[in-house]
């Protein structure tokens, strides 16, 4: 981490995307593919932003760039006032650990371990002690309605419960930003509605929530609605 790499308190937007693009492969190669090009938009702090678009449009690529688990090949992504495109891996990892968290479509839970252990993992790399992680995990499980399942193994949970456990894990480190990649993609309509309701409720507490979805009805819940098509990002509202 260099001296210019510093965290900034959120007086401005949570994200400022400045001409960001992502190309896979060498530009001179015929197999080169530009998944995202010249994206420019802001995501206000505390907003609920949805990113919609058809499969292969570049939604997940955009989410990966926002989550700092991939780097743009052009442009800049400013997180909470901090430019990140050329920042060191260590600094970007630290930002991930302290400022943001993820909810994935396929849950990414360790099926042979208990729900509590899975949720506690969310705070391990942000520097929390074991006792603090355990206390917070119990609290977050209660918030998502899974306190009675804490000692169960993940394999015994239903799909909706697994996504609730994943959300609880994402909240353990008290992130400012929650990035959700198709969080209802593997759920039926009833569970989808419940998960969206839970996320909206959490966001109302001041969390910046970015949610990728291919479901237009879910996309409409966003206060900021982005649409991605053929690698181009457009703001709907």
């Amino acid at each position, binding site marked *: 981490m260099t001296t210019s790499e510093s965290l900034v*308190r959120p007086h401005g937007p949570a994200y400022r995307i400045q001409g960001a693009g992502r190309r896979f492969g060498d530009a001179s190669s015929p197999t080169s593919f530009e998944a995202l090009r010249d994206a420019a938009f802001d995501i206000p702090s505390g907003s609920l932003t949805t990113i919609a678009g058809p499969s292969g449009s570049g939604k997940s690529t955009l989410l990966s760039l926002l*989550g700092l688990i991939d780097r743009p090949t052009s442009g800049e992504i400013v997180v909470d006032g901090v430019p990140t495109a050329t920042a060191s891996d260590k600094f970007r990892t630290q930002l991930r650990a302290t400022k943001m968290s*993820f909810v994935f479509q*396929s849950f*990414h839970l360790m099926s042979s371990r208990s729900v509590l252990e899975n949720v506690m993992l969310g705070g*391990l790399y942000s520097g929390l002690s*074991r006792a603090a*992680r355990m206390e917070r995990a119990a609290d977050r499980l209660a918030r998502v309605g899974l306190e009675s399942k804490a000692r169960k193994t993940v394999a015994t949970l239903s799909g909706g419960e697994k996504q609730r456990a994943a959300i609880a894990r994402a909240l353990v*480190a008290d992130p400012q930003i929650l990035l959700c990649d198709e969080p209802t993609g593997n759920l039926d309509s009833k569970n989808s509605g419940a998960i969206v309701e839970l996320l909206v409720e959490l966001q109302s507490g001041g969390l910046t929530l970015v949610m990728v979805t291919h479901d237009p009805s879910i996309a409409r819940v966003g206060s900021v609605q982005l649409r991605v098509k053929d690698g181009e990002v457009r703001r709907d509202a």
Partner: protein
Amino acid sequence: MRERAKGISIDKLGLVDEAVASLAAKRLRSVLTAAGTVLGVGVLITVVGLTSTARAQIDQRFNALSATEVTVSQVADPVTVRSLAFPPAFEQRVQQIDGVEQAGLVWQLPQETSAVSPTQVLGVSGQRDSGVGVMAVSAGALNVARARVREGKLFDPIVDRAEARVALIGSLVADRYGIHHLESSPAITVNGTSFTVIGVMDSVERHSELLNNVLVPAFTARRLWGDPRGSTSPQGWVSVERGAGQVVADQLAHAIDPAAPQRFDVTPPPDPRVLGNAVNADITRLFMLLAAVCLVVGMVGIANTTLVTVLERTGEIGLRRALGARPAHIAFQVLTEATITGLVGGAIGSLLGISVILAASLSADWTAVVPPEAILGGPVLGACAAVLAGVYPSIRAARVQPLEALRVGT
């Protein structure tokens, strides 16, 4: 307000917890991974323990046999070459030395005087046989050699001093001459003199050459063919108590002939420690090489299983990276898992090795010797081997990018 981003202090115990929980969650995989260490360390402990046990056993054997015999030979002297330096009372004189158990004289008769042919044996013609030698032995020499007869009896001092025309043969010589029973008083002719066979020996604990010769009493041989001469230098065999070899050897020449001790060349028994150590060094080297091969094979097994595990856990590792784990955290966890696996595998391997040593010693009626450093070192060795084996997989794991979490399931 701006603030510097300080490095996050990770709860190292939390990472260890994660390693233990990961191992516990996949018990079968963990057991299979540890199997390599169990085998490697188990074989190593077994080899070290059995080598130590065998060393103690070899020492006992050397002490029991090689270290309890002193030989004395007559120095070749051009003046006295035709006379026997050993006095008739050799055995009595030597047995006065503390520590001496038995003593006796023996010499090989020259070929030209020892033409042997079986006579009075049914079905066997009296042809000369140059393939069987003749030895003159005293009764005491047979006791030193711990000879046992299959049939008949050994010489005793009375027979010896009576200059009787009797002979002893080994079982191989008896078979060669077709002498199966002694009831018919079979005889063997040596240079024209007939000797009645009074015993057939089936074993000796020392000097196995006795079994391949026709043995005649020393006094008889001297009466018939004179003192030993030429290349047939006589030897005195003296059996001693354990630990008395060197002391007896120092006194022997003076005890035999105080007036001319220089006529005797005394050979003390080999130092059992020197001989034993030389043999043990060879055995240990061989066994340690075998154990090292086993340990390396075990390490390759651990490395292979750990690498496969890392590849299987790409999604989980990607998730951890997405949640803020640095490559060092991932490498630390993989190495910790390998270390715990090696430690437990080494401990189990040590227990197995000790069990094998005890079982082997019990079945062979040996005293089990297990070096304490082998017991304590087994788990440590297992852990070290596992850490070495885990280095490459941990590097591979640390290289997994967080983007993998979005592509692969856990």
